[in-house]
Every structure is written in C-alpha cells, then in structure tokens.
C-alpha cells in the first residue's frame, strides 16, 4: 500500500524545488530565542549572587514557613474581634474617601490636561508632567509623607490614596475627555453657549459613564492598597496585621488575612456589578 508519506518521499526533490520556503529551517529565530534565554538566565544567576541568595537560608526559611503556616490554624481573632472589625471599617473608609477625594481633585486637572479642552500645548504638557510625577510616587511613599504632615492615623491614609489616585485619574480622565465626540460640543456651541457650558452639557454627559466605572475600578484596587497602608502607620487593618506578625500571633494573622480576602472579594463583586450596571457588560475599562 502506497502511503502518502512514501509518495512524498519519492518526490522529495521535486517538492523541495517547488516549496523551498517549507523546507527551509529558520535558524535565525531559534538562535535569537536561545540567546535571549541564556542572557536572562545569566542575569538571574548574577542577581541571585548579588542579592545574597543561599540554598541554606532558603531551606531554613522554608522550614520556618512550614512552622508558621502550621501555627496559623485555627485562625482566630482572640479577644480583639471588635478592634479588628473597627480597623476593617476604617480601611474601607480610607479606600472610599481617598478614591472620592482623588477623583474630585483630578477632574479639573483632567480637563486641563485634555488637548481638546485646553488648546494651549504648554498648559496640558505641564499638567501632564505633574500628573506623571504624582503617579510615579507609590502610595506607601505618599502615606509616609502625609504622616509627617497630618500625623499618624487613617487621615494620612486617605490623603495618600487621594494623592496617588489624583495622578492616575488625571491621566485616565484626560484620555476619556480627549476621546469624546466633537459634534455635541459643536451643537451646544451653536446655541451660543460659553466653553463652560459645552463642558457641562456636551463633554460631561459623554465621559460620565467611563469616569464612573474607572472610579469604581480604582475603589476596588484601593481597598487592597488601604489594607497595607497601615503597615507604615497610616491607619486601617494593616497596622494590626504588621503588629500581630511582629509579635508572632499567627492565628490572629491568619484571621486578619482571611478578613482582608473576604472583604476584597465582596467589594470586587459589588463594584463589578455596579460597573456593569453603569456601562453595560460589553464595554471593558482599559487600564
């Protein structure tokens, strides 16, 4: 029985002549891939060496981890349940007020940074660089700075989240505003409106759903940030978490982590429902 393979092998030379592309092995791509992998591995080895990794330390650390995880069960709040719940409420308050304040501060900046609202290139360039700088500073760094300004406590956390969100929101809002349709603006202008009227009646109705869903999205992610902001002393559940870790109360640590996980899951669920209700399921918020 003559199989396809035997026929093909018999005609190999002719096939090769007719379809040279298929027979050509592409060594270029493979060599490049091998080179990239070798370079990455070499960099990794160098990094392990420079950062003082040692198998011994890793092994003893793993034993420690096993011990810690073992003593985490059963998770229990001990006598501090009320304190922890209060800290959790504080965390949510920090995330909520921080996001809101950041959005309120960012909206005028977003307008200033939008090319179609402020035609002056220097104005929006300057605003954008300021926003980039604000965004480049991590929320924990803002927290440390605001602790110096308003003292330890949740208020510093609110201001830290507001500051770092202001940078992100300013950029996102300005992009949303730049993507608006020009025609409603022209329509409002044709009735003799001022430029502030066009913002109110032509721009805001177009960008509001996008902005609202971005704010909700950031509220979700800020709930996570707010849980760790307490580690540096800016209020919320992170303070208790780092305290309990330092005093090796692993049951309470496990309970706190579980509290955080449940809260984050609930907030994610609620806010994604709200987001879909605002913008519809099909539209996706791009970062």
């Amino acid at each position, binding site marked *: 029985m003559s199989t396809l393979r035997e026929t093909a092998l018999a005609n190999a030379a002719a096939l090769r002549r007719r379809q040279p592309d298929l027979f050509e092995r592409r060594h270029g791509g493979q060599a490049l891939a091998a080179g990239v992998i070798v370079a990455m591995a070499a960099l990794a080895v160098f990094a392990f060496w420079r950062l003082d990794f040692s198998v011994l330390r890793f092994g003893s650390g793993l034993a420690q981890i096993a011990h810690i995880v073992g003593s985490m069960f059963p998770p229990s709040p001990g006598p501090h349940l009320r304190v922890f719940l209060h800290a959790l*409420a*504080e965390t949510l308050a920090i995330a909520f007020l921080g996001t809101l304040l950041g959005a309120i501060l960012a909206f005028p900046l977003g307008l200033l940074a939008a090319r179609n609202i402020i035609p002056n290139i220097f104005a929006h360039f300057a605003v954008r660089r300021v926003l980039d700088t604000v965004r480049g*500073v991590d929320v924990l760094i803002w927290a440390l700075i605001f602790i110096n300004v308003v003292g330890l406590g949740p208020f510093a956390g609110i201001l830290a989240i507001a500051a770092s969100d202001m940078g992100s929101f300013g950029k996102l809002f300005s992009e949303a505003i730049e993507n608006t349709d020009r025609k409603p603006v022209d329509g409002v202008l044709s009735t003799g409106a001022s430029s502030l009227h066009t913002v109110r009646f032509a721009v805001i109705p177009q960008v509001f759903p996008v902005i609202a869903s971005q704010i909700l999205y950031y509220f979700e992610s800020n709930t996570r940030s707010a849980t760790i902001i307490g580690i540096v002393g800016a209020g919320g559940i992170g303070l208790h978490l780092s305290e309990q870790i330092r005093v090796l109360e692993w049951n309470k640590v496990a309970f706190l982590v579980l509290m955080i996980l449940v809260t984050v899951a609930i907030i994610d669920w609620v806010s994604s429902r709200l987001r879909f209700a605002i913008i519809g399921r099909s539209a996706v918020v791009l970062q």
Partner: protein
Amino acid sequence: MASAVIRLPAEQLDRALGHYRGAVAAKRARTAVGLAVLAVAVVLAGIAGEVDLQKFLANIHRLPVYIWTLLPSLSWNNLGADLADWFWNLGGWLSLLFDTLLIAYLGTLVGGIGAFALCFLASANLERRAWVRILSRRFLEFCRTVPELVFALLFVMAFGLGAMPGVLALAIHSTGALGKLFAEAVENIDMSQVEGTTATGAGWATSIRFAVLPQVMSNFASYALLRFEINVRSAAVMGFVGAGGIGTDLMVAIRKFYYTDVSAILVLIIATVVIIDLATERLRHWLIGWEHA
C-alpha cells in the same frame, strides 16, 4: 430659503412637554437619590476614618511647607557643587536602585515561570478535569489577592532581613497576577491547531509546544514586561518592611526628616520608573511588530 417652523397643536404640545418634564423630573430624582446615598456614605466613612476637618484645616498649610523644605537649595553660580551636595550619596543610592531592579527582575522571572507552569492547568480549553482547573484558579487568586507587602512581612520573619523575602513576595504575587492573564491568553487561542497536532498523535506536552506556545508566546512576553514595570514600583517600597532595595533608605530619610535626601531618592526612583516604562514600552511595541511581520 423657505422656512416655516412647524408648530404642534396646543394639546399635543402640552402632552409632549408634560412627558419631557416628567422624564427630567424622574432623572433629577434618581440623581438626587444617588447623591443622598453618596453623602450618607461619605459621612459614615468620615466617622470611621476619623476625619477631623478642623485638624486638617489647622495643619493643611504644612503640606506646601513640607514640599518646599524637600527642595534642595540650588543656585546658578554654584550649581555643580549644590547638585553634588544634594546627591551626596549617589553611588550608594544607585547601587541600591540596581538591587531594586534585580529584585523586580527575579520576582518577575520566578513568578513568570510559576505562572507558565500553572496557566495551562487553569485554562478551560486545555484542562478537562474541573477540579484541577478550580484548584489552580483558586490558588492563583489567593496569590494575587494577598497584598505582596503582607507576604514580604511574613517572609522577613521566616527568611530574615534582606532581598530574599522581597523577591519571594514579588514572585508569589506575580505568579497569581500573570497566571490569570496567561490562562486568559491560552483560552483565547485557535483550537484548530491543537486539534491538528493531536491528530498527528502528539501528546499533551508536544501539543502545547507546537500548537499553543506559538500562538501565545508574544502575549506572555508582553504581560511579563508589564508586570516587570509594576514590580519595579513595588520593589522600591519593599524596603519599608525590611525586604531589600532602596525602600529602607527612603523610609529612614522620611522618618528622620532628612529633607533633601527624601527628594533626591524620590527623583532617582521616579527617573528609574520612567526609564523602565519607556524601555519596556519600546520592547513591547517591537514584540508586537515582530509578531505581525
């Protein structure tokens, strides 16, 4: 131009205007309810967050003063010496920044490898056993929901101070975040290629190598580069809990009010982040172009 404004009969106009007013009133009522809910939430959050507006107003002037004192005293005719004074520890800080970048790199690399190993088990089109899929998905979810700083705190207790806990914390978080993205990329592939390799008698590993990887590799690389950007920012604050990098120096400078040191380190961190962002963006565009070529 002949123009005649068509007017509706009075009763029709009244009805239309009535509908319009009703619609506007309903919308206003919805907005008012929304604002009221928001206001109640703000008040409740204000109470829980111990917002004290009086204290805030009494202290708000300190923020501009603080930022002003962060700025170094630079003068034109003595710029070189002033800059040298501002960045007095440039060598040490650059070395710490380099460590920070290495922490981010190792965290991304180890996390990427972990995500790569798990993503095929978490994707619905390649893994038929529901329990494996659910288990790996829940694991990835856990890895990315626990904040990396919490992992870092735990690991500092277990492994001791230094870069190692930072790398491991970033690696675990990256495994969770990248694993989800990788699995989504795998779920979006064209399955006919997998069917093709399976038809030739290829096993699981061979199918993945020749049918799945060529479709997802550029996506994976692009996601890993994005994660590296994020990890550089995170690695810069890992030092706050003693997990290596430049964060320790920054925290000491902020806590001890070494004002110009704070601004110098912040300038270096922001510059590094911007350079890394630009470089990875170039690399990602090049990857995308390479894929489409």
